[in-house]
């Protein structure tokens, strides 16, 4: 366990260096269109309005800025986090890609090899999503009307189908936790809808409920082992 950890820790350092460097680059790139409009066309919001815009963003998404990188860290790992919080699509593209890369390579998440495969999966998924968004930007308006209506309409079922397949993949490793997790999540979602709870709170509570289900099973199994011994 320890030897395995040390080799992983060096790789982790490399990833952190790469991650911080690329995040800084992305931070600048993020503002270039806005700055371009100012430099070449002289248009910029008033200083106080920029603060106001920031305030609106912070009020609407501020909690998500903090909650999401933390809630997703356990799944994305170090490199997956760095890539996802620049390239986006955490739940719908990056996580499934990481999970499938690990599955096909036959490695467990949370191990050194698991981290390697998650990085390979997340990074290669970026090329796919960038290619498709670019393709659709240029030809989407021309191609879409020619696709069968049946196919286009089925797009509205992409996300539930995707999340269910990924859930099956992660849940079948422990059937009790898998069944318990989704049942608890649906009950909590139902309560959340009734109480009109904000999205960020639901993310936190339901992710925590997954941990709680595992904890309960862990304690239950240990106590059962204890009684067997006794």
């Amino acid at each position, binding site marked *: 366990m320890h030897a395995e950890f040390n080799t992983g820790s060096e790789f982790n350092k490399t990833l952190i260096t790469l991650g911080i460097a690329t995040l800084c*680059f992305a931070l600048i790139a993020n503002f270039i269109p806005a700055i371009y409009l100012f430099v070449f066309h002289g248009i910029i919001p008033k200083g106080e309005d920029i603060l106001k815009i920031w305030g609106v963003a912070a009020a609407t998404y501020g909690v998500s800025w903090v909650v999401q*990188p933390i809630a997703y860290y356990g799944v994305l790992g170090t490199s997956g986090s760095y890539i996802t919080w620049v390239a986006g699509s955490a739940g719908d593209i990056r996580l499934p890609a990481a999970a499938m890369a690990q599955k096909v390579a036959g490695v467990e998440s949370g191990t050194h090899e698991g981290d*390697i495969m998650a990085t390979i999966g997340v*990074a*290669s998924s970026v090329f796919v999503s960038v290619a498709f968004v670019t393709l659709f*930007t240029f030809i*989407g308006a021309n191609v879409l009307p020619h696709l069968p209506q*049946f196919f286009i309409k089925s797009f509205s079922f*992409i996300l539930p189908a995707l999340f269910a397949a990924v859930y099956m993949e992660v849940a079948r490793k422990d059937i009790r936790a898998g069944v318990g997790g989704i049942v*608890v999540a649906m009950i909590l979602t139902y309560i959340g809808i009734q109480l009109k709870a904000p999205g960020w709170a639901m993310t936190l509570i339901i992710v925590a409920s997954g941990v709680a289900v595992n904890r309960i099973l862990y304690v239950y199994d240990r106590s059962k082992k204890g009684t067997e011994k006794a």
Partner: protein
Amino acid sequence: MEFQELINSPGLWLASSVMVIAVVIQAFVFLRAALAEARKVGMSRERYIGGLRSAVITAIGPSFSPVIVLLSLIAVIGAPTAWMRLNDIGAARTELAMVSLSSALVHGEVGTASFGVEAFTYALWGMALNNMGWILVSLFCVHRMSKIVERLYAKYNPAWIRLLMSGTIIGLFAYLLSGQITSPMLHGQYGKLCAGFVSAVTMLIITRLLAKYQRMQELALGLAMLAGMLTAQATFG
């Protein structure tokens, strides 16, 4: 310069491409580092390339889901900005929300003539400031998170910490899945539930009964998704 001309100008294409280039370069350096590490720890090429191929195939399906929003974003904020913002952090609906929230400060309403150059500028700043939040938090937190996890492993029973991590995975996907199916069910719509159910069963069949066909495993998620969405469309569409 006319509004439509401005938001689709070559200069704006150039300015917007920097972020997309950043995204691609980042993926490239991480992929290279991970492939080198895979070789270093002695993983067989067959395994990690198989994993890579599966990730690529898996990413194709969900890459289709923003296409319709992308087209409406292009109409509102122009192709270069829509292209950039769908390639970076922030889901399509988040970008749309920021566009309408920030342009509302200068009384620009999305999709009407009141959405002019000024409203567009406000929208650009809105999306940039919003994305900055995630980037900054990651910049300050991710390396600390990795230290915290290392310390947890050292301090507590590794078996429990592993369960803790797998609990966050279960919780997160349970959250994403239940967010898709619960609310429509309350309104008597079962299409999404059907899509999820068929997809999950297909996934189980491929990974359990067809486990010995390695190539099939790489396609598993894509096939499960297609089965789920097409069945739901045929039954409830």
